[in-house]
């Protein structure tokens, strides 16, 4: 009996094995919004290449890469249009999408086999220019602010489903009047590897200030909007939420800027808007509380006659967009301070918009800027630091080109006008302190604002 007890006690005293630690990750790592040193995939939902518009997709990369351009065919069962390109890095290439899929709308993907790399799509018509950087990360909910369906504006929401499974999309909207009922947009089926365009100006017309949230019940979706006014149009993608947004440029060439902020949360958020000019910063030009589930919009045209950089800081996560356009006729008469031609004359009406950057970074990659896409392009630098910073501007193209350096004073913005150097299709920017970079492209009749992509550490 004693032996049984003794051996039994020995058995009982033996330690349990260490518990299985399980997976070292709780969920898959979302693709970074930054350009990192790994393969990357960029979704470019707003591509139109047909009779009235041309789209060029610019790719900038810092390593030798293989680039795959993929454009799903909307006809079910038809193979995708795919183009492959191998390039030595650092470099940049601009691909005319008409050479791959010349069928009008052709949203697509740009895959890089190596990084850092990024892509931007620029859609140019006879009197229009739009585009923005492509999307590198896919949040579960997308937020798009800065929209309007007032008279004279067209607004299209594109829901691009690049994945093989079908998506069931839910769109929620809020205006200055509060939450908007959208019964027709509560369950939108988007077939895999296809897209759906929704005319929001018809679905919810005559709203001055509009913001939307796009989510899915099934599948995954990449949304973008195209806001048209007259011949020109602006396009900007959905973003996630952040408590700070930085915009190196909000206005140029006489365009009247406005800042749109969308608070989709269930509690009010206080925001503070700081402006940056070429010479100084103006802190807290606007402080306000945005009610829960409401969009907010403020015109920045009164704050400066020249170029402006903007910083929005909020007590809760918000989405923010800067829209710049020629002043509407009814507004132009009231405010003479805005530089340039107000709308209402025979001159074409221009509109541009861009998303901001949620944080500053020491390195940036700007795809498309340079001579390859045509037009006048400028790089915009915002130095939010209390010290001056020297920025190295390295042109990227098919050949090695010399870098330039510029100094940006503390708490200012700086515009670097670029000469149309052929063969340049992008820029790499490096600074000792975190900065924010974007770029603009303009033609005599149109203008586009495009965000830069930070390079990961």
């Amino acid at each position, binding site marked *: *009996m004693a*032996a*049984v007890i003794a*051996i*039994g006690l*020995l*058995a009982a005293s*033996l*330690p*349990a*094995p260490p518990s*299985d*630690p*399980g*997976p*070292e*990750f*709780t*969920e*898959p*790592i*979302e*693709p*970074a919004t930054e350009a990192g040193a*790994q*393969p*990357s*995939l960029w979704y470019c939902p707003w591509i139109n290449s047909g009779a009235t518009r041309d789209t060029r997709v610019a790719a900038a990369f810092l390593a030798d890469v293989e680039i795959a351009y*993929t454009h799903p065919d909307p006809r079910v069962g038809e193979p995708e249009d795919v183009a492959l390109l191998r390039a030595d890095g650092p470099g940049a290439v601009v691909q005319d999408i008409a050479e791959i899929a010349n069928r009008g709308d052709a949203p697509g*993907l740009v*895959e890089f086999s190596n990084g850092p790399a990024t892509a931007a799509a620029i859609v140019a018509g006879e009197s229009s220019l739009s585009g923005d950087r492509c999307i590198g990360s*896919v949040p579960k909910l997308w937020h798009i602010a800065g929209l309007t369906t007032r008279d004279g504006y067209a607004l299209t929401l594109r829901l691009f489903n*690049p*994945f*093989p*499974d079908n998506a069931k999309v839910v769109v929620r909207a809020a205006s200055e009047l509060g939450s908007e009922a959208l019964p027709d947009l509560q369950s939108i089926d988007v077939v*895999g590897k296809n897209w759906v365009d929704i005319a929001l100006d018809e679905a919810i017309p005559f709203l001055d200030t509009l913001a939307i949230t796009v989510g899915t019940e*099934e*599948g*995954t979706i990449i949304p973008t909007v195209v806001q048209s006014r007259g011949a020109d149009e602006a396009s900007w993608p959905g973003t996630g939420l952040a408590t700070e947004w930085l915009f190196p440029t909000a206005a140029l060439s006489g365009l009247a800027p406005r800042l749109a902020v969308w608070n989709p949360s269930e509690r009010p958020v206080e925001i503070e808007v700081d402006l940056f000019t070429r010479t100084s910063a103006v802190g807290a030009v606007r402080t306000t509380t945005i009610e829960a589930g409401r969009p907010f919009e403020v015109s920045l045209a009164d704050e400066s006659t020249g170029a402006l950089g903007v910083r929005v800081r909020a007590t809760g996560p918000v989405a923010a967009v800067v829209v710049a356009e020629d002043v509407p006729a009814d507004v132009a008469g009231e405010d003479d301070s805005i530089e340039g031609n107000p709308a209402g004359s025979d001159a074409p009406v221009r509109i541009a918009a861009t998303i901001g950057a949620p944080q500053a970074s020491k390195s940036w990659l700007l795809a498309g800027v340079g001579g390859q896409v045509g037009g006048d392009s400028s790089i915009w630098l915002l130095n939010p630091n209390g010290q001056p910073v020297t920025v190295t501007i390295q042109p990227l193209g098919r050949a090695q080109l010399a870098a330039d350096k510029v100094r940006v004073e503390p708490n200012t913005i700086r515009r670097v006008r670029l000469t149309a150097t052929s063969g340049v299709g992008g820029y790499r920017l490096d600074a000792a302190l975190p900065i924010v970079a974007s770029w603009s492209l303009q033609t005599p009749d149109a203008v586009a604002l495009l965000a830069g992509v930070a390079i990961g550490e």
Partner: protein
Amino acid sequence: MSSRPPRPSSLAVVAILADRDASLDHTLEAVALQSYAPVETFVVGGDYESVAAALGVGWEESLQSLVGRLEPTITHVWLLAAGTAPHPDALYTLISESERVGAGLAGSKLLDLEHPDRLISVGLTTDVFGVPYLGIEEDELDAGQYDVLRDVAAAAPGSLVARRDLLKGLGGLDRLLAPQAAAIDLSQRARVLGARVVVVPSSKVAAPSGTESAWREEAGRIRAMLKVYSWLTLAWALPTRFLIGLVEAVLAPLAGRWTLFRWLRAWLWNLARLPSTLRARRAVRANAAAGDAELFRYQMRGSVTLRSLWADLVETARARFPSDDRGIGALAQEMRRPAFGVALAALVFSFVATRELWQGFPGGGLSMPLPDSGADAVAAYAGGWNPAGFGSTEQLPPFLGLAGVWQQVLFDRADLASGSLALLAFLGGIWGITRLLRTWSVDSVPGILAGVAYMAGPAARTIAGSGDVANVVALAAVPWAMRVAVAPWPAGWIRRIGRIAAAGWLSALLANLSPDLLLLPLAALLAKALLAVREGINWLSVLVAASGVAIAVPLLRPWVTSVDFTGYFRAGVAYWEPGTVLLTAGLLATAAAIIAAPDGLWRLAAWGGIVAAIGGVLARTAGEGGGRHLLALGLAAVALGTSVVVGSAFEAVRRAAGVDSLRRLVLGIGAVGAAAVVVSALAVLAPGRGGMPADELGAALRFTGASIDDNSAARVLLVGPPESLPGNARRVRGAAYRVISVPSPRMWEVELPSPGPADAALEQVLEAVIEGESFRAGEQLAEFGIRWILAMGETPLSAAFVGQLDLIPLDGLRRPAFLVDSEEALRAMTVNGDPWRVDGTGFAGPAAPAVLIREQADAGWGLDADPGDWSMTLDGSSGSIEYQAGPERRQGQLALWLGAGLALLSAILRRRR
């Protein structure tokens, strides 16, 4: 008053058929006392010329020569076996009665020479195959109950009288045949010539009850068939006879008879003598006056062999029930005994507990269905391809080979093999424990209950719950391997050799079912010997068990020479946490039996308790690096120890009449504990899988069968918590996964081999997916032949595949699943994209000069294979590609034959008298 027939006018001679072992003296004396004196007496055959001369009788070399030289006045020849003692009127009644009914051949009633009141035979009835049926009970007394002159299929060989002319025409007895077969042959040939064959019971002859060589008799019967039947009858009778012999060879061992080699030898003997048989046949058929139908008239329907086999099996089964009453008449009384009821309940329990396994082993844990082909399983085990994961040359477990052999016996039906293995395991385990405990005088009711606790108690259920089919089946062999070691040591060196051989083949069987348990019988008996070091009998049993292990180890080849033992014993985790209630119940039973059991039963309980406790230690050695094989060994020891404790506790209650009331109370408490353990076994009844897990994997993979045709093959990537995945799993960033064949993974895929180049590459792909660096995982997975991804449980790895451009989520399934959006997600296909299917461990499909096989490359696949790659382009012009097995195949075959030889040797030697 009896009426005596008239004295015959015949003249007869006596031919005494000499036998080297039989005495002529009393036969000659009995002949001399015959009331009807023969004309002359001869000794026929053997080297008896001088002896015959000394005794004053004639001698002839053969019966044929004797008949040839007899005068035509001689009408009859009395064929009398040496050693027999005919009654004085035996010849008279034989001749007179046969003349009266016009018989050409007449036989006497044979009585036991030593017990003249007991019958040996009253003529022979045979079946169509010439197998005799005596129609009398063993040791049946002669009360004249059969004393009717009648036609029979054959006359018994001891004493028969034949007409001289008939005998001359028949050419006498066939000298190549054993006596009984020769008599049957002679009778059949006589009947074909139109003669009547009768038995004359009033002619009594006392004969020795010795038996002739069984194989010679069987060989003779086959020869007799060949000589006498028409070709049409032979066309069905001969193959049927062959199959009946095979069936008998397979099943007779269950009744303690070994007929395989007798059967083989008989057929080979006939094959060698086929020319002489055909010559003899020509002679018979040339003069045939009657057809086969005339023979059939006196034969019984069906097969005497099969009837006898069935009777033996039933008798054996009945004999295993604990009763001294073996008579049929005692059956009713037997059925009223508790032992019968409990045994019947155990039988029903085994059937019900394993009923679902007749559809095949479930897919879950370590269990998967057996391969479709038993031959493929054997080939894969013995030097063939290990198809688990991406394939390898690593050794498969021996259970696969053994199960494959069993499956081949059962017409290559995997479902039959699975069900029968499980049922035999339950029956064998319960029966084995009962027999083992009977060694120590534990009665059958406690023994059967202990057997139930052994096969379905908490420890066994833990083994079965992990899906460890091999160890579930191997459990059944443990008590038998112990029983043969603890059985009384036989007298005589031949039987002792038989005992060692039996220990050897039983240990080899155990080892080949599960090497994990090979040492359990030896270790348990060693523990028993250490508990009573002065009892030499215990040490003898240890020696026998050790001899068995020593014999079994070489018979474990090729497994034993191929396996990495360090990795083997460290694979998995050995940590068992028994349920508190049943642990307490077991402890109560142990303590009560040790404290209060009478008659030395406490020693048995103490031994069981110690074995169980040591098993508990082994089953919790994860901290020391113990793996699942040690866990299985530990759990089997717990099961064995628990069953011994349960048997002791119940037996103690049975013997409690002589103990005081306090001890009786303690024993009662112990019995309650033991009963709790036994009752817990009922948990296996409802699912009907013998405690094995549900077929989660089969159910989860069923959707793949609907979307892949039978002519193609693919893999599925399973992700989920490790316990939700079958067999073992690999890890990427701590998340478990593994690949498996679809739609029907088989048992050989349970254990993943050591990681190879394909595993490393797949891990890299999954890393990239997790890191968000991969956007077309489907394209990458297709290169591994992976067509689906299936989440068997909650895992963040599942979410990693959401948002991939070429993975299609499959809606409507119970578990998250993705389909690879690529037509090339196949394991094997031609360069044109035509799929090939899996064929055993190889591949087959439309002939093509080049076929892409996505398996770990190995030289065994062909010269084109690059060992560093996991896909090969091979020549498929023959329409199939197979792995060329290594030399281990021969080792496996050798082990099988050696094992079978040992079993035969032990059976022969142990039963030799």
